[in-house]
């Protein structure tokens, strides 16, 4: 079983209490533990399963269905860049290629210094700022190569 910090367990217990059925807390618990562990691996899934009294295969089903759960280690900054319609209309594809070249990685990969992971995602719901990327929950819009340079530089 993987270790969970005490404060985290308290948070998890309060999440579980929001629902009449323990299993409902699964998605949120996976978010919380992903923040703590960095990613959800086999041992993590087993741990979560025993927390909620469900079969580990049920956890794996959920982890592999939703795109936000990382199954292997990701970089300190997870760059999610949109490849959907409005962003593409406003030059998104060029920016995706720019990022790939700049970071020297392909989609889904992490830079060798472990700082950035690059993923292309579907519509992030910030189309007024297109082209848009999201890094660790923060939206960055109206992107240009120069803006991207500055944003990445500022991320320590």
């Amino acid at each position: 079983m993987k270790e969970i910090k005490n404060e985290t367990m308290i948070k998890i217990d309060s999440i579980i209490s929001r629902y009449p059925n323990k299993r409902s807390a699964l998605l949120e618990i996976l978010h919380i533990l992903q923040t703590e562990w960095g990613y959800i691996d086999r041992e993590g899934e087993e741990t979560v399963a025993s927390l909620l009294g469900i079969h580990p295969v049920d956890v794996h089903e959920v982890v592999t269905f939703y795109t936000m759960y990382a199954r292997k280690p990701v970089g300190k900054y997870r760059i999610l860049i949109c490849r959907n319609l409005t962003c593409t209309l406003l030059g998104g594809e060029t920016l995706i290629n720019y990022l790939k070249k700049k970071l020297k990685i392909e989609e889904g990969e992490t830079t060798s210094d472990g700082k950035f992971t690059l993923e292309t995602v579907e519509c992030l719901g910030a189309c007024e700022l297109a082209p848009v990327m999201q890094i660790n929950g923060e939206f960055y819009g109206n992107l240009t190569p120069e803006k991207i340079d500055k944003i990445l530089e500022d991320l320590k």
Partner: protein
Amino acid sequence: MSLVITSWFGKVSIEEYIKAGGYEAAKKALSMSPDEVIEEVKKSNLRGRGGAGFPTGLKWSFVPKETNKPKYLCVNADEGEPGTFKDRYIMEKAPHLLLEGVIIASWAVGINKAYIYIRGEYSKIALGLERAIEEAYSKGFLGKSIFGTNFDLDVYVHRGAGAYVCGEETALIESLEGKRGNPRIRPPFPATHGLYNCPTVVNNVETISSLPSIIRNGGEWFASLGTEKSGGTKLFAVSGHVKNPGVYELPLGTSLRELIYDYAGGIRGNRRLKAVIPGGSSSPILTAEEINISLDYESLMKAGSMLGSGAVIVMDETTCIAEVLKVITRFYAHESCGQCTPCRQGTPWMAKIAERIASGKGEKGDVDLLIDIANSIMGKTICPLGDAAAMPVLAICNKFRAELEEHIREKKCPIERE
């Protein structure tokens, strides 16, 4: 112009919101009987603002009054329809408007527990919502005996984790139960067998946020703002090749031309308009000649399109339609949950064909094949995602066939781009 929602934008804290008159409608609703509240909502002609456009009052009336099962409200804040960002605006800029609407809806239907299902990517917005909820609890507007009545109401935020299909109401419920977001077969409907198999109402953020003004000013007032069958105003999220992308609240019945040119500033660079998607990527595309259409549920349906979420994506003459088709089909293939055969196998097939066309590897007959696949999916799937994937393909292939065939023939994009 009466602004039902955007006039509250900026009143983020509960103090600001109350100062501007917030939570008065909730108090008023609690002094009415639940049936009276449902009547007002029915009179208002409010229709679901998430995309399906189902009459809200009617949806509520499907929930059995007599039942010994608990009832639930799920607020659909999954906002995954490409081009849509209006619910994000509401939750960022007026979270208490949403909470006030939740109180009204819960009182009307007899619900004591509400979950706001918010897409996982809106994590920062979720934090803001949690703060607003805390504020409401501390003032006794949520929790036990709200506003001094003997009505209890608990509201929780529940984060999704990246799946467009969870915007479909039964998939949302499955996800809330901690499972894969696989839509359920209907019947039975969520109104009788929803969350934990209990009576459940699923409503979009904007729909719920329209309730305070309906209660405050009356259902008839709301209905009068729009057209005969579509009451009220609507938030339109405009993006794409416009000068001023953003959220615009306009009465239903405003013309698309007015929205694009008078409100969103017209086409950037003053270029020519080529096409518009009026209600999110699932809605059939409109050509530049079709923009005099009235933005309401009936008119768009009659024109073979739909109002959907009201996400207006504007495309100018530099747009390659084959690229648009490629991006849209790729989206649905990526988001298909995989449960039923036509969507699971049909959406990636369409995506592969669209990709070949866009990259100059299209073959003769590809456009007809796309149309045939789309028709094989329409109406045959467990949930509307199949239809949502098929309709844009049919519209683009029908209205822009010449451009697609040119791609296939010339093996490259005919548009000159910088």
